[in-house]
């Protein structure tokens, strides 16, 4: 059964790599040269939170070893740099290329699993809330460390920018005033559900592997 276990694991690594790269590439497009950086931040914080939590919880329960979620986050984070380099190669200023920070939230997930002696329900509730609330905060640091996207857009005009992305003036605050609070609030609630989904996927995987083991 070792071969099946390892194949499942390698398949998982590939899926993580592809997903994190694609998600970063797509989220990047909404930050470049627009006045919606903080608006898209909410959407992509939630999307990244859910993707991380479901994968990390699945992987964590698959191995049963605290530290696996950090390993998962590290893989995503390193692959994210591929997307970063791809955008840079297309000629975008490095200052625009913001990508999600997964690692610190994954560390918290490991901590919740380890501190509750590998309790699955604690992982879902405490881990889910910790990831959902922390990820927008760690991503906020990313956005605060770069030059203002709108200012950069005015300073470095992008000749091939499509007209619908042409910045006019900042729109932050038009619909809501605290993107981080909104992302953290929605993320904390939704992440628990997705953590539970991760656990359930793990159960299904083990059942599937058990069904295969009859050939041994």
């Amino acid at each position, binding site marked *: 059964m070792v071969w099946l276990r390892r194949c499942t694991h390698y398949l998982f690594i590939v899926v993580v790599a592809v997903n994190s790269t694609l998600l970063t590439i797509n989220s990047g497009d909404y930050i470049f040269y627009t006045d919606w950086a903080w608006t898209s931040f909410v959407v992509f914080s939630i999307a990244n939170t859910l993707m991380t939590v479901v994968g990390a919880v699945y992987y964590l329960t698959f191995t049963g070893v605290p530290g696996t979620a950090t*390993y998962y*986050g590290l893989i995503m984070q390193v692959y994210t740099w591929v997307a970063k380099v791809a955008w840079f190669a297309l000629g975008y200023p490095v*200052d625009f290329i913001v990508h999600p920070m997964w690692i610190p939230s994954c560390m918290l997930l490991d901590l919740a699993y380890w501190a509750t002696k590998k309790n699955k329900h604690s992982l879902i509730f405490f881990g889910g809330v910790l990831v959902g609330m922390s990820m927008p905060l760690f991503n906020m640091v990313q956005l605060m460390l770069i*030059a203002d996207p709108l200012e950069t857009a005015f300073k*470095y005009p992008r*000749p091939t920018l499509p*007209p619908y992305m042409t910045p*006019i003036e900042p729109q932050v605050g038009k619909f809501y005033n605290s993107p981080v609070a909104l992302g953290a609030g929605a993320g904390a609630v939704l992440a628990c559900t997705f953590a539970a989904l991760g656990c359930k996927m793990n159960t299904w995987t083990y059942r599937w592997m058990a069904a295969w083991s009859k050939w041994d």
Partner: protein
Amino acid sequence: MVDKKFLAVAVSAIFVLGMYGPNVAEIIQSAEAHGVQAQLQSRFIQIQNEAITRQSLTTGETLVLSGTLVSLVERDQRGWISLFSESTNSGNRWEIMARDPPGVVFEIPGNSITNYAITAKALEPGVYHVHTQLNVANVGPGLGPGTTVVVDGEAIIKPIPYGMLAYQSIIILAAYVIVFATRPWQVI
């Protein structure tokens, strides 16, 4: 029971329409398919007397693009002005050094004539067609007629956010420490 011949004809008709329908539709509407936004903008505010100080320069040198904005409408408008350049190379090619009228977004009074000037530094070599780009709030962007500009020299690199790179690198380093301490791959 539906007649088989009828069914065959209906399926063929759907098939043919599916293949050629979009092409036919494109032919019919092509007269108004392109440049709607730019034309709309030029009916509000026109870019006239566009002039450029130089057509050949080296990276790091500046050029000034100037002209007048002629408002054709009663209402005051808000807009911002920039460069639009076309070329075969990709990359971020210009850095705006100064704008006149100053600031980012400025008022264009109704029925007025406003002089403008954009000073831009060339960042990347290439052959460009440089236009004035005027973006009017709630209307859209429009372009001036444009001029060919040749830029020589080494490309100038854009600013690098070292703070953000350090933030990511430190966290990635911490993750490596945890991962090698726990070695999750040993249980796979």
